């Protein structure tokens, strides 16, 4: 059951502000979608390893060397707020 409380909990986990109207809408739509998706529980998957990526590719190893692709200026050029080369954020501690 996807009630309003569940929606609020999920929105908090996702750090996503949802309005009262959105919460109402999502609870109906998610319940409907999940109601349909739940049919996968009927498939017998005993002993099947979940597939997380489609192709089995060997890990790619490279030398651990320092290189510079971008300048600090380029990396901070899209920041919504900065001071010098630092990102400005609310207090975190």
């Amino acid at each position, binding site marked *: 059951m*996807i009630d309003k409380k*569940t*929606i609020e*909990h*999920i*929105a*908090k*986990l*996702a*750090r*996503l*502000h*949802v309005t009262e109207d*959105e919460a109402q809408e*999502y609870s109906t*739509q*998610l319940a*409907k*979608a*999940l109601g*349909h*998706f*739940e*049919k*996968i*529980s009927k*498939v017998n*998957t005993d002993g*099947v*390893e*979940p*597939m*997380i*990526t*489609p*192709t089995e*590719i060997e*890990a*790619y190893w*490279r030398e651990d060397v320092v290189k510079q*692709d*971008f300048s600090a200026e*380029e*990396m*901070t*050029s*899209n*920041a*919504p*707020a900065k001071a010098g080369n630092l*990102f*400005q*954020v*609310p*207090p*975190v501690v």
Partner: protein
Amino acid sequence: MDLTFATICEIAEAVKTKKISAKEVVVHFQKRIESLDGKLNAFTSRNENAVKDAEMLDARIARGEDVGALAGVPFGIKEMFCTKGQKTTAGSKILENFVPPYDATAVARLKNAGVVVLGKLNQDEFAMGSSNETSFHGAVRNPWDLDRVPGGSSGGSAAAQSARLVVGTLGTDTGGSIRQPASFCGIVGVKPTYGRVSRYGMVAYASSLDQAGPMVSSVKDAALTLEVISGFDPQDGTTSRKQVPQWSQNLNSNMKGLKVGLVKEYLTAEGLDSDVQKTVENAVNELKKMGAEIVEVSVPLTEYAVPVYYLVAASEASSNLSRYDGVKYGFRAEFKNLSAVDLAEFYSQTRGQGFGAEVKRRIMLGTYCLSSGYYDAYYTKAGQVRRLIMEEYLAAFRQCDVILSPVTTAPAFKIGERISDPLTMYLNDIFTTSTNLAGLPGMSVPFGMSKDGLPIGVQLTAAHFEEQKMLNVASALESVSTVKGKHPHVV
């Protein structure tokens, strides 16, 4: 040469042999964009330096340099790809002003082969949609009927290509986002095997499903473009180190002895439009006439493909999109006094205001599936069924070389017709999602016309890394396609 309808191969050849300059080609298509895109809304931004880029190519050609296989070919690039110095919004307000300092590998490879980028193309927000109606830049219109959707999520690419505003486009496909709009707009769209094309610099939606591919006007153009963008990239650990075949030179439309599989479960799919059904039947008959053998295969778990796809894609999306936090780049909600704002509130307001409705819906769905108490029932279970679906496809490909199927249940639908009912929109993806779940190559090739004069594509799928087989059958079908030589009225 009629530039408007020239193929990639023809234009590259003419530019290389100096029959025409790259600049003339670029200016021709810029004029087309100028006069036609107002009706379509396919472009989100233009490359102001396109003429300069073309002049530089011409100068190099004049010096006798080999500028690459796609010399002077104008391309449009889906908003999903990072383009150095040019806005990359992924169709979202949250990336409204994002200007990447680098090119995605696929874009860099196109440019290295001589492509001139004319601009960026509209799409559903973060590629989440099947109609291009979820874009922050507004809906795109289908050139064949301006009241209809071009499909999605690569709707801008399909519309621009079909109206010949460019000679080639690049799209991305997570659950059908190249093949479905290609079918709706009467063009060729290829989603290669997972791992063929680097995802570096491609905005992430669902990383185990996302692949880039060409959306162009002929099978040969698709094969050539795919050759250019494919291959191992140290920047993407999931790219394959397999050699990239010369698909365009090895195209072979001799169908004698080739085994074409029809999926039993697809033929009886609910709600299959009669024009779509007829188009697939005609394709089967043509292939038979050419000497192909038709075999029936069965993929019983296919009915679970859409649920598995949405559970996997939404879960991965909720994780991938956590990076949009208003700190390093992208939109940030306005706060009067930043030092007095609670951090969780800062994130939640930024994301709540920055994302559109469909993206929020999928983040909520994915977060729910990954949350404590539900993880096993949804995410783990979906992964298990996903493996079984792949195994069924691999078994089917032991009986046939390619699988032929519809791309969608019906041709392009009307704008606004399905947007209010997400589940109906999701179920539209019934034929395309299993290809991504299993990592298989798939493509759409235009083949029939509906009673209303809309193009209809057919889908071809092959085993992993067997793109050549699929391209060969597509090339055989292309030669007898009823869409051939037809163009949308808007052109």
